[in-house]
Structures are given as structure tokens and as C-alpha cells.
């Protein structure tokens, strides 16, 4: 039976009617039309469904929508501000850290969750933070280098 819940996504509260078995991923994509969050494996292995919940990167494919009431959720659609891409998004484009782009929303959110609490991460910290995000195209090096470059001392705007 469907139940009405309130989901807080990118600062906005949405009322959604969900079945208990609906995942947060499905509610985002099909009820809210936020299709930037991708479904790869559906089992927690690929990270393409990563969103930030209360400051932490999580796999939205393994969380029930009904279990997400009252949490603050940030999806890839929430990164740009006033039509301006987040510096990390722009850097991914400028540095060609994106090929097909399927992994990018999850990669960016995992990276953002890291740099929100660790402004100048080391390469190892970056690699650990995105270890749950699979990219089949870039070979990771460009992604890691882009995040490293963007968070190097002097680039404070990234975690604004």
C-alpha cells in the first residue's frame, strides 16, 4: 500500500506517495524526475546511484524511499547554483574526466562528500573515497587527477 512521505531533495521538500519496497533511487528518478542519479547494478557495487544523505555518500539503490524521510538528500541536480556549475563539475569537463558520463554523477557526489569534510585530500584519500564508484571508460586516473588538482591548496572555492 502506498504511503505519503516527505522527501527533502536539494533543499526542497517533495510529497511523494511510495510503496515500502520502492528504493530512494526509484523515487528520485520516477517520482521526482531527477534522472541524473543513475542505476547501474542495483546492488551497491557500482556507485552510479550515489547521492549525499546528511553529508554522507550513500547508494540510493539500497535505501528505501520510506526510510529517507527527514533526511537531507543532495543529488547531482543540486550541485549547480544559479545556473553555474559546481567548480568540481566544471573541472571534470575541463580536464576530460568524463567520457560516456554514466559514472559522473556518482563520482562527483562521492568526491564532493569527501572534500566537504576534507578540503585538501591526498591521492590515497581520493582513491578510497571513490573506490565504490566504477568507471568503465576513463581508467580513473583523469578523475583522480582532476579532484586532486581542484582541491590543491589555493583552490578554496571548491568546497564553498
Amino acid at each position, binding site marked *: 500500500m502506498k504511503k505519503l512521505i516527505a522527501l527533502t531533495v536539494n533543499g526542497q521538500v517533495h510529497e511523494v506517495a511510495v510503496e515500502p519496497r520502492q528504493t530512494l533511487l526509484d523515487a528520485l528518478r520516477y517520482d521526482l524526475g531527477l534522472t541524473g542519479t543513475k542505476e547501474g547494478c542495483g546492488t551497491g557495487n557500482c556507485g552510479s546511484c550515489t547521492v549525499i544523505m546528511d553529508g554522507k555518500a550513500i547508494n540510493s539503490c*539500497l535505501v528505501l524511499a520510506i526510510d529517507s524521510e527527514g533526511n537531507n538528500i543532495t543529488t547531482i541536480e543540486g550541485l549547480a547554483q544559479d545556473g553555474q556549475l559546481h567548480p568540481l563539475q566544471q573541472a571534470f569537463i575541463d580536464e576530460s574526466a568524463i567520457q560516456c558520463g554514466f559514472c559522473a554523477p556518482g563520482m562527483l557526489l*562521492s568526491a564532493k562528500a569527501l572534500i566537504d569534510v576534507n578540503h585538501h585530500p591526498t591521492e590515497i584519500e581520493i582513491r578510497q573515497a571513490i573506490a565504490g564508484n566504477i568507471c568503465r571508460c576513463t581508467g580513473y586516473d583523469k578523475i583522480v587527477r582532476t579532484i586532486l588538482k581542484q582541491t590543491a591548496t589555493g583552490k578554496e572555492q571548491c568546497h564553498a
Partner: protein
Amino acid sequence: MIDFQYLSARSLSEALSLLRETKHSRLLAGGTDLIVQMKDRRANPSACIDVKKIQELNRLEWDGNSLHIGAAVPLAKIIAFNEVKNRFNILYQAMSLIGSVQVRNRGTAGGNICNAAPSADSPPALLCLGARAVIAGNNSQRILPMEKFFRGPGKTVMTADELLVEIEVPTPPPHSAGCYMRHTPREEMDIAVAGVGSFLVLDETGRCTQARIAMGAMAPTPIRAIEAEAGLTGKVLNHDLLEKAAEQASLEARPISDLRASMEYRREIVKVLARRTLTNAWQAASAGGVKSK
């Protein structure tokens, strides 16, 4: 996933009465095991009882004598707790290896042991540290040593109307140290083909007063290598003794062949891991080991 009822328990007593009142219900913590099983239809509960909002299950505290890990505390929070890293390092090592950041942000300590996967990473470390499970049932509570907790793949000794409240880990004595290592085909995000925890306590003179070796993915449940441990207790350690203990541990393993590895390979790799973890634990304990109280 088939349809089910979602119930969120606000207190321990509410969770216990929901368990009693609902048939075929399952407790839900981080869901990183259960939701996957429900998607595969390996688990088809008629109700999920969410335990994440229960206060007692969210405790994370070191009181000098013991570390108290509430069953619903996420793994990421446990490894970020300095006392765990400083005083219960083997547990820190094991939990840091579980899944990815995303999995550790949701997955809990309780879920890891209650799911009872023979390959789970935290049980060998918990066995090494002599941890206990605090279980609540109908008007009662029981405390069990970790050795008695597991019954087989996916099975624990808890009955359908019980739930895990917390894991209690006694503070390791001075001059002790542990080490956990696992072997996986991929470095990150893979299930252990073998996992070994070793934990040694030395006295002032360097003699071993207690040895624990625990193995994952080597039997239907996580197990200790009792004979191998006995070969070290009371002895002044050297590389030869550690090598013999590692060989003995491998003989005590009862591995199976599956798609991840053959029985023979598992038996070989467990010996290597036992030797490496024992060596690391010995070196760390000789260097002073964990801080005393």
C-alpha cells in the same frame, strides 16, 4: 522485491513487541545485506522492522573496561571513533575493509554479524578480542561470547523474537596487538576468499600469555584455530613458532570450493595470511602494543 510493511521502531520495547506481533518479519538496519537479498528474492519478509531509531542501538562508547558498539551504529562512524583506532586496532582494520564509503556509511556492526556470512570481515576481529553479543528478547537479556553466536551461513543463535542490542568488546591488555588481513581478487569491494585475524598478548619478558587466531570464509561460521593458538601460549615467540602455528591454523580450517576459490587454494592462502598477521601482531605487541588504560 515483493511488497512488505515498513515499520519503524522508536524504542527497544516497541521493536520487541513488533517482532512478536508480526509474522515473517525481518529487522532492518543499514539494509546493505537485507535489501540486496530482498531484491534477489532470497529474503521475502512480510514486514521490515527498522531498528535505526532505537536509542540503545546507537550507543558508541568506551568506558575504560569495554567498548560498546550499538548494533545500529554505521561502520563509518565506528572507524572514525578514535578509541577504536587506538585501542581496538584489529577491529578498525577489519571494519575499514568492508565495502566502500557508501556501504560503510549505511552498513552497521550489528548487520555485519547478524547476517552471519562466513566471509564477513568483522567477526574474526571480534573473536580475537573476545567480544560479546548483548541480545534482548521477551523480557530478558542475554550476553553471549562471539564464539557461541554463529550457527552457520546466515544463521545465528538468536531466536525470531530476539534482537541484537550491542557488541561489547573488552579493552585489550597492555603489550597486546592484533592484525586482520583478507585476500580478495579485487583490492576494494570484494568478498573475502579468506580472512584471518591474529591477536597476541605478551608479558613483560616477551612471553606470549594469550594467542588468538580467527578465520573467516574457512568454515560454515567464522572459527578460531584453537590448536594453533595453544602452540603459542606460554612460549617466547620466534618466526619458527609463528610459521608452525600458521600451518596448524590451515589444518584446522574447513574450507569449501566455490566460484571464488578452490578448497586447496583457500587452505594455502589462509596459511599465508595467518603467518603475516601473526608476524605483524608479534612485532606490534613487542613494540608495546596498544596503549594501556
